[in-house]
């Protein structure tokens, strides 16, 4: 629906026919031109019918532009304009609780539209935001005042991360009515949640319009629960008519999404549960769960240390020798749990004086009396007691056991017929379900349980013969778990296996988390708050510290949801206050009778079309100007849309630009010294050689006086090899024998002083990386004039041409490197080949940003440096021969000269 702010301007449209007539009869003004032989032009017969009158389409263009100007000046407005009926000032009630955060933009647009409409009607407006303010102040009615003045107040509203306060709003409304008696109209931008008090108060309005977002469910993340192998999430929402699904994102402290839980939502469902299965290390990084694409405070769950931190107390049967390596009672347990949890030692009293998740008793009977009571109370409150059997426990069973113990039994050994028993697969209800049961875990002794009807459901692990290995019983909110073997390797090989570690970790993960400071908790100051959009912000000014104590208060302006903790403490002691768990399941309220209903989503923003129409008119006039110039011949406009074939050809040429590493143009190779590699046909290997030689060339250029150009790939027998001092040849395992032409070219290359570095890439620590490469090397070198070889001697020039090297590593190290034996004087004792398998190119290779492409094996910066040094030596060796070998004699020569 379009309305006009200045409708009387539309009368101007009546002038259009006049304009049409004027345009029709007035040809464009001719351009004057002085011209002496004008007499010759006189009475020229005009053979062509020229458009003395404006062409019809130009006419149309101008009329359209004029009409647009008139329409634009009349300020048409598109959008919702039906202002609120009724008499008196307009009261805009905005629900700005948590439920409004997700579609806050649409809500503000709706409220602003109402303000616009009221401004057009010159109607005073009052504003009531129903949630308590950030300072904790109760709702208050602002106004009435002219609508433009109120607009700033409205746009300053933000959704709050706590529920609305309908009662407070109703009271504020009553106060306002008392101060401003008389009729009023109301517009309620409602979040749809029940607010009976406010609805009753609004019934007094002369006209009530209720705007609701019917299509958008109100969703909250109600609960997150850590289970041994998964993280469970519960989502609640107002029912939706159509089925769908919601994604919950699990984010780390730095904002990375570690996982995405898809929660299916059948039609009409109000709850959805899902689980995220992640390794415990990854799971422990999650600090925040949020509903995807739902920006509001109740869609965020902050996970504090209760989801992670599990202090474990250890109590041995006898303190002395408990930590002795391999035989101590706590040795295996502490080795298994140390990397993952915080271990504590001490007496029962000291351990229980602080929050504790798990207590492990290794073959330690519990003294009856105070100790047993204290432990029992702790288990009732959620502690997990893990006990290991042993001879002491078997003698003196106590009440803190999941089953009654019967006897000890030995399996295998001199006095029994029975064989040591392996583990049976874990039962389904066990927290160990899914763990593999290695066959090498054998149980030799165990304590047996008294058979009872409920025994089988308490068994979490059993042996192959069905006797229990781990039993558990829930007591109160806690559990007691008993391993029927010792925590040492005496009775079984279970503590020696990796399974032991996994079982203990699952048990610990099953226990209840502990949060809070290490010592007696003080008040927890607000560290970070969630705003109404679920974003982390600095704490609100009115936020107060959480009182010490167990229970968390419901989020409110005084305690906004977010992080709380002792200031300056590390993240381990922070506590999260979440909005979702504190909220009742969201339900939609019935709209009050007599109210006009509107939908927030269906209200497009009001748009003032005037500027757009004027802009369009301007564009049309500019086009008209161009056309007019063209018609008068003043604009030599020739459209050339036909692409030039040459340009296309150039583009194609550019697209097909030769990739790097292509053979150089004729003669260009002679201009610079450069390294070369033999193209093997394996693109990955060729790229590796290329990258390696680039890295080496850079290194050599930086460290020596040699200036090497970019390396190039060559094909023996086809390329001219005479320009290259050094050929790198990574021999692929599937290399085929060479062609006669290639053999001749390579032999010629070596005879004239070239050096070939053969690299099988499978020597030393790289053994097995390229199986078959040695056989391939043999195939490749068939027919080549390879001289007799020897390992590189300690005093070989290759080891001291530039750097002094005692080893010649590449990406691998430890293998042998071969050169020609020093008997061949033909080439001045310079070896024409260097053969090895250290994958030097892999060590040298850098990418375009100068980063190394491959890790060295076994590794270390030293190895890579040595690899580069070997490469430098090799280049110097290839360029200078045994010159450096002669240098050795310089002192002797000088001495002789001196004499």
């Amino acid at each position: 629906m379009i309305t006009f702010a200045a409708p009387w301007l539309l009368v101007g449209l009546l002038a259009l026919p006049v304009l049409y007539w004027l345009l029709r009869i007035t040809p464009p003004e001719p351009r004057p031109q002085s011209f002496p032989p004008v007499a010759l032009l006189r009475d020229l017969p005009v053979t062509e019918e020229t458009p003395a009158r404006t062409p019809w389409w130009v006419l149309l263009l101008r009329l359209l532009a004029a009409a647009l100007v008139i329409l634009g000046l009349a300020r048409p407005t598109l959008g919702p304009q039906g202002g609120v009926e009724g008499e008196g000032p307009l009261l805009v009630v905005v629900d700005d609780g948590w439920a409004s955060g997700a579609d806050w933009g649409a809500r503000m647009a709706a409220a602003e539209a109402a303000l616009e409409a009221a401004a057009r009607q010159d109607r005073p407006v009052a504003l009531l935001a129903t949630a308590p303010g950030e300072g904790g102040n109760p709702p208050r009615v602002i106004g009435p005042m002219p609508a433009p003045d109120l607009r700033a107040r409205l746009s300053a509203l933000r959704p709050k991360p706590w529920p609305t306060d309908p009662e407070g709003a109703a009271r504020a409304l009553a106060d306002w009515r008392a101060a401003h008696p008389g009729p009023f109209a109301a517009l309620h931008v409602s979040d749809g949640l029940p607010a009976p008090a406010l609805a009753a108060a609004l019934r007094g309005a002369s006209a009530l319009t209720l705007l609701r977002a019917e299509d958008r469910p109100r969703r909250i993340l109600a609960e997150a629960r850590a289970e041994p192998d998964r993280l469970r999430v519960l989502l609640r929402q107002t029912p939706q008519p159509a089925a769908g699904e919601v994604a919950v994102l699990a984010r780390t402290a730095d904002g990375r999404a570690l996982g995405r839980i898809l929660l299916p939502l059948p039609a009409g469902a109000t709850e959805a549960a899902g689980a995220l299965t992640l390794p415990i290390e990854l799971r422990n990084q999650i600090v925040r769960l949020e509903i995807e694409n739902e920006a509001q405070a109740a869609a965020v769950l902050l996970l504090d240390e209760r989801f992670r931190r599990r202090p474990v107390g250890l109590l041995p049967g006898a303190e002395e020798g408990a930590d002795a390596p391999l035989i101590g009672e706590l040795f295996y347990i502490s080795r298994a749990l140390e990397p993952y949890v915080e271990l504590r030692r001490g007496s029962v009293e000291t351990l229980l004086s602080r929050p504790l998740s798990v207590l492990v008793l290794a073959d330690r009977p519990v003294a009856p009396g105070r100790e047993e009571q204290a432990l029992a109370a702790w288990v009732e409150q959620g502690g997990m007691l893990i006990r290991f059997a042993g001879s002491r426990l078997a003698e003196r069973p106590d009440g803190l056991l999941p089953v009654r113990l019967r006897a000890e039994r030995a399996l295998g050994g001199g006095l029994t017929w029975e064989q040591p028993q392996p583990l049976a697969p874990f039962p389904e209800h066990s927290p160990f379900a899914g763990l593999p049961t290695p066959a090498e875990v054998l149980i030799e002794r165990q304590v047996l349980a008294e058979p009872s009807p409920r025994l089988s459901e308490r068994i979490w692990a059993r042996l192959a013969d069905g006797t229990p290995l781990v039993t558990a019983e829930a007591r109160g909110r806690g559990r007691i778990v008993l391993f029927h073997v010792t925590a040492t390797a005496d009775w079984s090989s279970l503590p020696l296996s990796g399974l032991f570690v996994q079982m203990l970790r699952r048990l610990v993960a099953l226990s209840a988390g502990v949060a809070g400071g290490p010592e007696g908790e003080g008040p927890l100051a607000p560290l970070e708050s969630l705003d109404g959009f679920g974003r982390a912000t600095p704490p609100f000014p009115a936020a107060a510290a959480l009182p010490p104590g167990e229970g968390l208060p419901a989020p409110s302006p005084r305690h906004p949801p977010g992080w709380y903790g002792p200031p300056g403490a590390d993240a381990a002691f922070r506590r999260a206050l979440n909005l979702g768990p504190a909220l009742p399941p969201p339900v939609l309220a019935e709209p009050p009778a007599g109210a006009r209903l509107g939908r927030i989503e269906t209200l497009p923003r009001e748009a003032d079309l005037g500027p757009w129409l004027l802009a369009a008119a301007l564009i049309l006039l500019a086009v008209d100007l161009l056309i007019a110039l063209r018609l008068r011949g003043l604009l030599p406009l020739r459209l050339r849309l036909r692409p030039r074939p040459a340009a296309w050809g150039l583009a194609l040429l550019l697209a097909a630009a030769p990739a790097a590493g292509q053979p150089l143009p004729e003669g260009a190779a002679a201009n610079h010294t450069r390294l070369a590699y033999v193209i093997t046909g394996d693109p990955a290997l060729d790229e590796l050689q290329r990258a390696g030689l680039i890295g080496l060339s850079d290194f050599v250029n930086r460290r020596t006086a040699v200036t090497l150009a970019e390396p190039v790939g060559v094909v023996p027998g086809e390329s001219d090899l005479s320009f290259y001092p050094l050929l790198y040849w990574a021999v692929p395992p599937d290399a085929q024998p060479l062609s006669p032409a290639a053999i001749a070219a390579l032999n010629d290359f070596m005879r004239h002083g070239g050096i070939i570095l053969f690299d099988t890439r499978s020597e030393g620590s790289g053994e097995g990386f390229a199986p078959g490469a040695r056989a391939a090397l043999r195939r490749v070198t068939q027919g080549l004039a390879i001289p007799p070889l020897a390992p590189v001697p300690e005093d070989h020039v290759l080891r001291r041409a530039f750097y002094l090297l005692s080893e010649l590593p590449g990406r691998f190290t430890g293998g042998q490197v071969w050169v020609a034996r020093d008997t061949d004087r033909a080439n001045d004792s310079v070896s024409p080949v260097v053969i090895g398998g250290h994958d030097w190119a892999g060590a040298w290779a850098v990418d375009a940003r100068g980063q190394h492409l491959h890790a060295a094996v076994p590794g270390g910066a030293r190895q890579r440096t040595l690899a580069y040094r070997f490469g430098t030596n090799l280049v110097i060796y290839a360029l200078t021969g045994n010159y450096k070998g002669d240098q050795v004699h310089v002192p002797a020569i000088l001495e002789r000269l001196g004499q």
Partner: protein
Amino acid sequence: MPSPALAHRAEAAGAHLPPLVVEAERVAATVMGGVHGRRRAGQGDSFWQFRPYLPGDAASRVDWRQSAKADRLYVRETEWEAAQTVLLWRDGGPRMGWRSHLSPVTKAERADLLLLALAALLLRGGERVKLARAGARPFSGRRALAALAAALPGPPAPPAAEAIPRHGRIVLFGDFLDPLEETRALLAALSARSPRGQIVQVMDPAEETLPYAGRRRFEGLAGEAPMLLPRVEAVRGLYAERLAAHRAGLRQLAGQLGWGFATHRTDQPPAAVLLALWQALSPP
């Protein structure tokens, strides 16, 4: 009717005459280079050539001394003695002061240049030069060029027939765009005094090609009524035909009188037409 503004413009044009003189000397020098080897006619009785006696020659013309050296009789010919007076005129009308975007100079400037260059050539050749204007004085001698240039600006007037001495020659520079009848009347009056004359039509390139397009209103410079053309490019061919016809008329007119006719475009170098003029003016 010369308007004050026009006189003013003429004065302004005269202010830069010395450069015009220099330019005219330069153009004349290039033409002199082009006629290198040509013998000049001089004043007085200087020797020209001996030629064998032909029957009918007066005996008094026989050069006895020369004839005594050979078996034949030789007649001594002296050089052409009578210096001619060449009248020069250029159209100073308002049409001439126009130039289009295609031309570097106005037609009047080019006509002045041609006139002075031709005058320079003639003065070097010993001829007398006179402006075809009532009461103008003749100039002779090489130094007279600057004086001639100084006398050149003046009120636009048709060439005065009474200024022409008998058998004097006349060279007219102008665009000759007036109706043919007017030109015919003018030339008839002139040719009564001067049997031999030259017409040089100086035109702007735009006047030949009509390089305009679109809707234009053409305004004459001599007070003609403006002419509106809706699409100039459509009449370009017709205009060319009409101009060619006008030019053919002029040529025919000149032919009937035994006069020479040449055209010149202001975007072309002046030397070519000057050379043609010089050759046409030289004695047969």
